């Protein structure tokens, strides 16, 4: 079904961004996911974020693993190259792609099965290498495509649609990402586009490993009473610590709230994050504090959302490896091959 293309028709008065693109230019094929799927809301938020940032769609590489979430890159940025890779292995493919061309924007889309179970190792290592990427996990706590088995992010004690109680402890990907040194860590809820869109924008503008855990209820297999990833449950237990606005270019900072509750964070590329504090005690620059805060609130059954941690001076894998500015995929024989004269010297040293 994913070959169904959307009609190209655009309303002449449709809103355009700085590049002259409309929302339609950031869309992809028609989603084949279930009606009401949280993932489709995330897709919409990604489209909105890319539109708002006026990104050239073809300068984004969309890379995913396998699963419902990993199908979604086909539904946004139709003019971008996408790569639906191997189950749990998006992070390594993205890392390699990033090494080949540092100039593109890398958007990794994964799910909780893809990143917390089969790909837990790759998730961890891409984060600890500091790959410059936006890594989004569309987290619904179940395996949708194989019809509703628990995933590793399902909370202990939560019930499956068939009534089975999960007895395993959950993996909190946000907590792990913080521990492994991700330099931009956020959690959001697919049903809260207002919160999610700027979080994605901030991540795209972040130079370093940005990780976003998006709770995304599975309408088919995990939206019932007893689930801790249902729309109702997440709405009731959502504890947002801040609200974010991403300011790019020379936009004046307009804050309609008490300035004491707003924090401006300037990122490496000049973009500014305006954080409206909802929890007065929360400091998004304090990695340790964030981890403690998360643990404490998790124990109380609350799902902490918002921009949880950011290091605006982050560096990335390319800076660790000290690679040339020119993308490696554009280097040619003249740049790479030392030629016969060097080989003559090597030969001479081997006699």
């Amino acid at each position, binding site marked *: 079904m994913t*070959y169904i293309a959307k009609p190209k028709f655009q309303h002449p008065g449709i809103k355009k961004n700085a590049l002259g693109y409309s929302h339609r230019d950031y869309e992809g094929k028609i989603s084949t996911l279930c009606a009401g799927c949280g993932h489709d809301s995330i897709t919409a938020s990604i489209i909105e974020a890319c539109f708002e940032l006026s990104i050239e*769609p*073809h*300068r984004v*590489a969309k*890379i995913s693993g396998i699963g419902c979430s990993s199908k979604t*890159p*086909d539904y946004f940025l*139709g*003019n*971008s*190259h*996408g*790569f*639906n*890779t*191997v189950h749990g*292995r998006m*992070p*390594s*493919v993205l*890392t*390699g*792609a*990033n*090494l*080949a*061309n540092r*100039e*593109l924007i890398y958007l990794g889309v994964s799910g909780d099965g893809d990143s917390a179970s089969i790909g837990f*190792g*790759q998730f*961890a*290592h891409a984060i600890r*290498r500091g790959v410059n990427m936006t890594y989004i996990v569309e987290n619904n706590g179940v395996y949708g495509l194989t019809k509703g088995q628990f995933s590793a992010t399902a909370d202990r004690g939560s019930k499956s649609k068939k009534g089975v109680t999960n007895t395993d402890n959950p993996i909190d990907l946000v907590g792990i990402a913080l521990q492994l040194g991700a330099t931009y860590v956020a959690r959001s809820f697919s049903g809260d586009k207002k919160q999610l869109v700027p979080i994605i924008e901030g991540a795209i503008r972040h130079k370093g490993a940005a990780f976003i855990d998006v709770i995304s209820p599975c309408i088919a297999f995990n939206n019932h009473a007893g689930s801790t990833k249902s729309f109702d449950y997440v709405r009731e237990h959502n504890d947002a610590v801040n609200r974010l606005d991403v300011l790019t270019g020379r936009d004046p900072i307009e804050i309609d709230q008490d300035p004491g509750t707003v924090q401006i964070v300037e990122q490496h590329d000049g973009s500014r994050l305006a954080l409206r504090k909802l929890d007065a005690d929360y400091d998004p620059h304090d990695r340790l504090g964030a981890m403690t805060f998360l643990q404490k609130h998790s124990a109380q059954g609350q799902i902490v959302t918002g921009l949880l941690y950011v290091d605006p001076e982050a560096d990335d*894998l*390319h800076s660790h*490896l*000290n*690679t*040339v*500015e020119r993308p*490696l*995929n*554009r*280097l*040619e*024989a003249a*740049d*790479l*091959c*030392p*030629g*016969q004269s*060097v*080989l003559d010297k*090597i*030969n001479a040293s*081997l*006699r």
Partner: protein
Amino acid sequence: MSQQAPLSSVNDFVVRFANVNGSGSASANELFARAVLRHGVPVSPRNIFPSNIQGLPTWYEVRVTEAGHLGARGGGTDLMVAMNPQTWDKDVAGIVPGGYLFYDSTKPMPSTKFREDVNVIGVPLTAITNSTYSDPRQRQLFKNIIYLGALSALLEMDPKLIEQLIGEQYKGKEKLLSSNVHALHLGRDWALQNLKCPIGLRIRKADKVGDRIFLEGNNAAALGAVYGGATVCAWYPITPSSSVAEAFTNHCKKLRHDPETGQAKYAIVQAEDELASIGMVVGASWNGARAFTTTSGPGVSLMTEFIGLSYFAEIPAVIMNVQRAGPSTGMPTRTQQCDLIACGYASHGDTKHVMLFPEDPAEAFEFAAASFDLAERLQTTVFLMLDLDIGMNQRLCRPLKWDDARQYDRGKVMTAEMLDEGRDFGRYLDVDGDGIPFRTLPGTHPTKGSYFTRGTSRDRYARYSEEGAVYADNVQRLLRKFQTAQDMVPRPLQANAAKPTKYGVIYFGSTAPAMDEAIELLEARGHQLDRLRIRAFPFHSSVASFVAEHDFVYVVEQNRDAQLRQLIVTENGIDPVRLVPILHYDGTPITARFIAEAIGTHQDQIKVTPLRKAVS
């Protein structure tokens, strides 16, 4: 003393050094091998070592061979340098009758520890080192140089050539240089004063080395990757392949930094496992960089899902597989050619992959560079099939060559200009009839040429499809592409016997030097054989015709299950009876003696009772 006449040979014998792992003997032993080379006499050294770091036995065997036979000789040791008490009994037992035993005679040994038919040469190495050096580390290291000095006297070597080598090694480090030369003469002088020099085995200057160079296959393959334009290397440590990635790192440090900014024109990542290393290679290649990984059998097993993706989604990937004895952990430090089936057909579903079989470091260099052209031209995985014998041993081979006019073949990549010209872009559209479609790289064009890469079935325009006809159309094209590869990969090399013969032999890779020598042995026994050295898979049509032209063809390989033979039979539909397997698989390198004996015996049987000619 010896009842057996002492062995007597000039420039044709085997010396084996028995050492303790981690005792610093390796550099002294290598110095010995290089010193023989400086006499103009070819050598073929082999490291024989366990999967261990320190304390366990390790051997270094040097075949001195003026005739230039670079395969392992087998059949025991002519001169044993027994420096490891742990392996004494086994080492002494391995000496051929009339051979020599060189040992540290500082402590007296009971006569039962020796053999009647072996000539014993005792040098009080520990006593000499202890009276000269006080530092324990120096005692350990210089002991090795002292035995080298003694050997130089016993074998009548020119000490100046050894000094010259030491001088090159410690250039600019005068203190180390002079102390090493001093140690060399300590041993040499002691031997000259106290022993009958020379013994029956001698090194005499010859002119048989020429301009050949001496290096390991892994190092050569790494250099091939540098010359072949690899910019991304992702790998996971595994014996015997780790030294490829390490050598690539060293070469890049010297050759691939921008002189102005100091920045690197490469990226090397030690991945968390082989799944990640091949994933990075696939990601980088998808995005247009030349990328490779280096591994061995267990790593290939882990990579197979990605290899299938590379095949089906048509993404270039270069995998250097330095083979070791399997299955499972097998014998990690022993050699075999045992991954042909695992690599040739890696992954689930119908898959076939290109494999290149270099015979020595020079070919490892050439094929490594070529593998990137092939991978990008064919948009698929290319395996460079090394093995431990080529990879981790220094081998004498022709000097490395590069044509400075050579450009990289980046394959069929559709550019923004081509898209703007209105070229029809179908990612899986066979526009040229060779089965190879065009690809675009991410970020090429704002509105044209993007597509969704996936491991699922799709049509010629990369649109998802589970239609049977669409699927079949695609996999048939992949087969067509594989046929195209036949004429792109290195061709087999044929060498015919002096007289017409009904018998042939097929072999590949590290078997080559032993095979060349075996042909001489077989000719001496009156057996004529035509030879075909296969250098790549898929097989060129000349493989099938070679088999057709002979009654029997021996297929010589270093594995139990005759994997090359299986591939030839399967891919060419050849009657298996025509192909006689000659198999060596104990983890030691195959020898000419083994091949000649196996083929000779079979030939003798044919001549005694003629078999009814096989119907083909």
